[in-house]
């Protein structure tokens, strides 16, 4: 059973494939998928080639980093926290990895990637420990670490850029390398989605995330360590931020202080559009995936339909507001259904 779907009891009451199909169609994920298809369709009316498989694959590849980050952010938001430091974490790890590569080109890329993950996880652990051990509100912690991480990038890099010619060819080519027709970057996003599906739906940690976010008080009584679960979510978000740090600087072949500045809000936006409740406990991997794809599609579609890229910020802002408004309405409906059922049962 997918914990993100609402009202599982209503599914069990009307048994049968037809009603289950209707339930699926009414779910938020289906609505979102529909919105995504409509969006692509609208763009295709202006530029038919946009809907070709090759172009869609390119859009997916372009959204890959956002997808991976959104999955990490989802874990944090599910546990009723938020991580605003992901983009700064990404930029800091990206800078360190790029500087390492520029200084010692002999270090194998796999080692660098693992180093990026470990560094990112360590930075995430700082957030997690502050939230767990000192009980500081996550938004304050990550606002603080966001500015601190950005400042540290300046300290380690001395404000200088690491440019394409300083990076080794292997460092730059990995995300682009084709494998079974898709670039490695896309494969990493696919693996991240599969990994998140297993983690969220098939492990005790995943169940604990929903429990902690849904009702922290109740989670304690079921024997879940709320602080520890949240801390682990932050570590996971940090680890994917670190990985994306390497992917970002190698894909764009440049590292500087303001890499991915403001991207933390895109990541939160992807989650919110994907129907992940900022109040915790509600959300699916598919939602995060489609939220990120929605933003990625808009970004790629704007130049195609001849709209200035300066519109992108306002459009994603509107998308966030609409998505939150829709989420708030459907979440309220859940409450009513449960109450009515309880009345009937009594």
């Amino acid at each position, binding site marked *: 059973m997918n914990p993100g779907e609402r009202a599982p009891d209503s599914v069990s009451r009307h048994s049968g494939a037809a009603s289950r199909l209707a339930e699926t169609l009414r779910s938020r994920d289906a609505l979102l998928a529909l919105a995504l298809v409509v969006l692509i369709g609208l763009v295709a009316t202006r530029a038919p080639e946009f809907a070709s498989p090759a172009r869609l694959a390119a859009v997916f590849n372009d959204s890959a980093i956002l997808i991976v980050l959104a999955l990490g952010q989802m874990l944090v938001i599910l546990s009723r926290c938020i991580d605003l430091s992901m983009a700064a974490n990404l930029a800091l790890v990206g800078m360190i990895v790029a500087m390492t590569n520029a200084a010692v080109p002999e270090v194998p890329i796999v080692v660098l990637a693992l180093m990026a993950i470990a560094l990112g996880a360590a930075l995430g652990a700082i957030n997690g420990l502050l939230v767990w051990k000192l009980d500081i*509100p996550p938004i304050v912690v990550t606002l603080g*670490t966001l*500015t601190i991480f950005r*400042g540290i990038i300046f300290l380690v890099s001395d404000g200088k850029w690491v440019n394409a010619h300083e990076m080794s060819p292997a460092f730059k080519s990995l995300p682009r390398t084709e494998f079974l027709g898709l670039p490695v970057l896309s494969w990493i996003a696919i693996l991240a989605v599969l990994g998140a599906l297993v983690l969220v739906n098939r492990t005790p940690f995943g169940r604990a995330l929903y429990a902690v976010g849904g009702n922290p008080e109740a989670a304690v009584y079921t024997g879940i360590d709320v602080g520890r679960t949240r801390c682990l979510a932050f570590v996971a978000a940090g680890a994917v931020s670190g990985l994306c740090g390497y992917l970002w600087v190698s894909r764009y072949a440049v590292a500087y202080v303001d890499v991915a500045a403001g991207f933390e809000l895109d990541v939160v936006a992807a989650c*919110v559009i994907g129907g992940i409740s900022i109040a915790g406990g509600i959300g699916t991997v598919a939602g995060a995936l489609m939220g990120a794809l929605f933003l990625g599609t808009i970004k790629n579609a704007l130049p195609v339909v001849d709209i200035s890229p300066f519109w992108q*910020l306002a459009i994603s802002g509107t998308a966030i507001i609409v998505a*939150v408004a829709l989420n708030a309405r459907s979440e*309220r409906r859940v409450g009513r259904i449960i109450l009515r059922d309880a009345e009937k049962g009594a």
Partner: protein
Amino acid sequence: MSMAGDGPIGAEARAGAPHGALGEGRRRHVPDRLHGPLRRLLGSWESLLLVVAVAIFVANTFASPYFLDPWNLSDATFNFTEKAMIGFAMALLIISGEIDLSVAAIVALASTMMGLAVQYGAGTPALVVIGLATGLACGAFNGLLVTRLGLPSIVATIGTMSLFRGIAYIVLGDKAFSGYPSSFSWFGQGYVGWVITVELVLFAVAAVIYGFVLHRSAFGRAVYAIGNNPVAALFSGVRVPRVKLVLFLLTGLMSGIAAICLTSRLGSTRPSIAFGWELEIVTMVVLGGVNILGGSGTIPGVVIAAFVMGLVTFGLGLLNVPGIVMSIFVGLLLIGVIALPRIVRQLIDSRTARRSAAKATVRADRGEARS
């Protein structure tokens, strides 16, 4: 969500905020100020801050010979006056349990609208009206999203933050507006007398008004009541949605005023104007002792925090420390001031726990000896 948490209306016990660190089953005390012996030692958070401010002032005096120059000090106030004016309204908003992350975007949009009006030949009075009206309109939009649609303010204002700044980008693109009338420069560049800037006077007036509203008016009591327990406030006759709407309007208005000052001071508008201010303003408010979960905080605290942040950035600037490195200090300050009371409290808690455990053992030993 347990908005109707188990905390009584009181400064320190408050459970359940949308994004609170509410956690395990035991009752939480969110220490917004120190308790017990330490409190007696240090007095209030505000006096502790004041000591910090004086220490930074003295340190700066020794660090740079240029620090004590009155004109330099006057220039230094620009580091915080505009942000602090927004900070006062933000303090009330945070005390009521909400937050507005779109303030910097409102500044950008208001500045853009004023720049647009200049292109059509608007004079200074019209510019001021446009700046204030844009701020109020944005504040009303935020307020209606939160009070009418019931959206959590943190996400709603992340959305409007993109929307407002996005509109500024649509209007301006990569261009800039300039050519403001010379009389308009009075707000950001004018002096009332000697080294006292117009902005400093505006800052002082705003501080007095907000201090009065929060600490001496029924509206201020309502703000505290909502922050401590919105449901209880509602049942005691506070019109919670209306108060919150007014707070969002005030925050928008103050952002409009800050936009007028900033635009007047810079003399030009780019869509990236005031970028990242929202974080600095929240930091200032939290540093001033306002509980990020709502329910407590004071305007004098925010005033002192504004001076602390202004002095730190100005002092570091005199020492040629780049702005981005200063942000490390700001970040450390933000986490540090919240972490410190908690660490102290945990230490005290563990010591009293150990002491009572020791007493219990002693008692048990005696009991055994008697029997």
